[in-house]
């Protein structure tokens, strides 16, 4: 494969694309881990999503 | 320590709000300012806090730190809570503690207002009463001799009002003083009353 006189531009284009795609993937993965961690934290403290006890009569 | 007001007057926008207010109180005492709406309760507190200028009369705090003004030795709890919704509960409190130059007592202060379980929660999730409690935590986190409280019990439920009353009693026992504006009882048994406006 010979890239000719404009090799810099071609490499730069691929590099930018790889960078943006990697950034997107990092965003998705880190965000996923962060949300999981917070959810785990909240569950550990016994917080639930639905007001489980709200309907019942407290004695 | 002695807080003295002599012939204090306040006029706002050309209208006289109050005039001839006199009181003198030593440390360890509380003063409850009462009066109908518009009598100038909030204005008096803001004047003590140095937020509005004194139209006439004299105001002095003696016997405390010598080179600090009254405002710099006071805590002011106004109608708004000075809570930033995007910061967490502990971030909010830590900022005010650092800004007001207090000691590092964030945990104890959150404990005192019962907000420890919510410490990491963004303040946007708090209810009005919880925001109020976070605001009160500031008074505990940073030691200042004078507390200026503008209707401190508003938005608080009964247990929180009781907890606030305990905090206020502790502050008085420690030699501090409290000036509070209120419509109803705020839970202090031995407070002097200052009635503003025509009877």
């Amino acid at each position: 494969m010979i890239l000719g006189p404009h090799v810099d531009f071609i490499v730069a284009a691929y590099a930018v694309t790889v960078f943006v795609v990697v950034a997107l993937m990092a965003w998705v993965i880190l965000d996923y881990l962060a949300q999981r961690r917070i959810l785990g934290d909240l569950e550990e403290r016994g917080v639930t999503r639905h007001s489980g006890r709200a309907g019942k009569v407290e004695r | 320590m002695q807080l003295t007001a002599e012939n204090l007057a306040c006029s706002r926008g050309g209208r006289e709000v109050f005039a001839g207010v006199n009181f003198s109180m030593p440390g360890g005492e509380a003063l409850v300012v009462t009066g109908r709406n518009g009598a100038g309760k909030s204005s008096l507190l803001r004047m003590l806090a140095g937020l509005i200028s004194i139209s006439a009369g004299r105001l002095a705090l003696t016997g405390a730190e010598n080179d600090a003004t009254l405002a710099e030795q006071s805590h002011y709890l106004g109608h708004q809570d000075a809570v930033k919704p995007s910061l967490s509960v502990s971030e909010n409190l830590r900022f005010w503690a650092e800004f007001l130059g207090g000691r590092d007592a964030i945990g104890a202060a959150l404990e005192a207002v019962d907000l420890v379980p919510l410490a990491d929660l963004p303040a946007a999730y708090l209810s009005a009463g919880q925001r109020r409690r976070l605001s009160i935590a500031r008074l505990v986190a940073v030691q200042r001799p004078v507390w200026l409280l503008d209707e401190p019990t508003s938005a608080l439920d009964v247990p929180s009002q009781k907890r606030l009353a305990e905090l206020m009693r502790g502050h008085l026992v420690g030699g501090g003083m409290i000036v509070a504006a209120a419509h109803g009882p705020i839970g202090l048994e031995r407070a002097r009353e200052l009635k503003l406006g025509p009877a």
Partner: protein
Amino acid sequence: MAVIDLANPTRFLAVVNRVLPWLMAATILAFAFGLARVMYAPDDYQQGATVKIMFLHVPAAWLGMMGWGVMTVAALGTLVWRHPLADVAGKAAAPIGAAFTFICLVTGSLWGRPMWGTYWVWDARLTSVLVLFLLYLGVLALYWTAEDPGRGSRAAAILALVGAVNIPIIKFSVEWWNTLHQPASIIRSGGSAIDPSILMPLLIMAGAFTLLFFTLHLAAMRNEILRRRVRSMRLMQASRA
């Protein structure tokens, strides 16, 4: 039946968890295959080796536009059917579509420098893509500013629909503006039939990028569902304390 099943976020999460690894594998395979074909693709007689940039640029342009298409459909879902997943789909599509539009702009200007002698010309097509990018940034800013996700996504849905109606008008007026000011001075190889030896790799790359888009989109949707779960749990926590 399947649609109703997917409407439930919990069920949707389960499906995503099952599908995502396969989708990822397919994406990687498609890229491996596509890039291999790209390596052996011949040079263009006019563009020379820079035609290799086109294998990134053209799919990115398509996906940038498709991202807005996804947002438009999701916006209808939000506004008309009030579908809970539509909000999530629209919000997740915005940054991904913006990223692909950005790739399109950058690769385009990196291609333009050797071909046209400048990184940027106010050519009708480039300018339209730039406007699309600005619209994406507007939607992202809207999501970023709104603290209440429900209100934010309805506002963004309206903006997405307005944008979908407006994009053709913008495109038309930009073309008119451009021809008014600038007689055709740019040599473009468009119009002539593309040689299959270039077209095939291009299509494969487009497929690979599309798979990548959907992989990222599903993963981002999953994050968004989790984020809303965190929000409702925090609200619950605050109301209990």
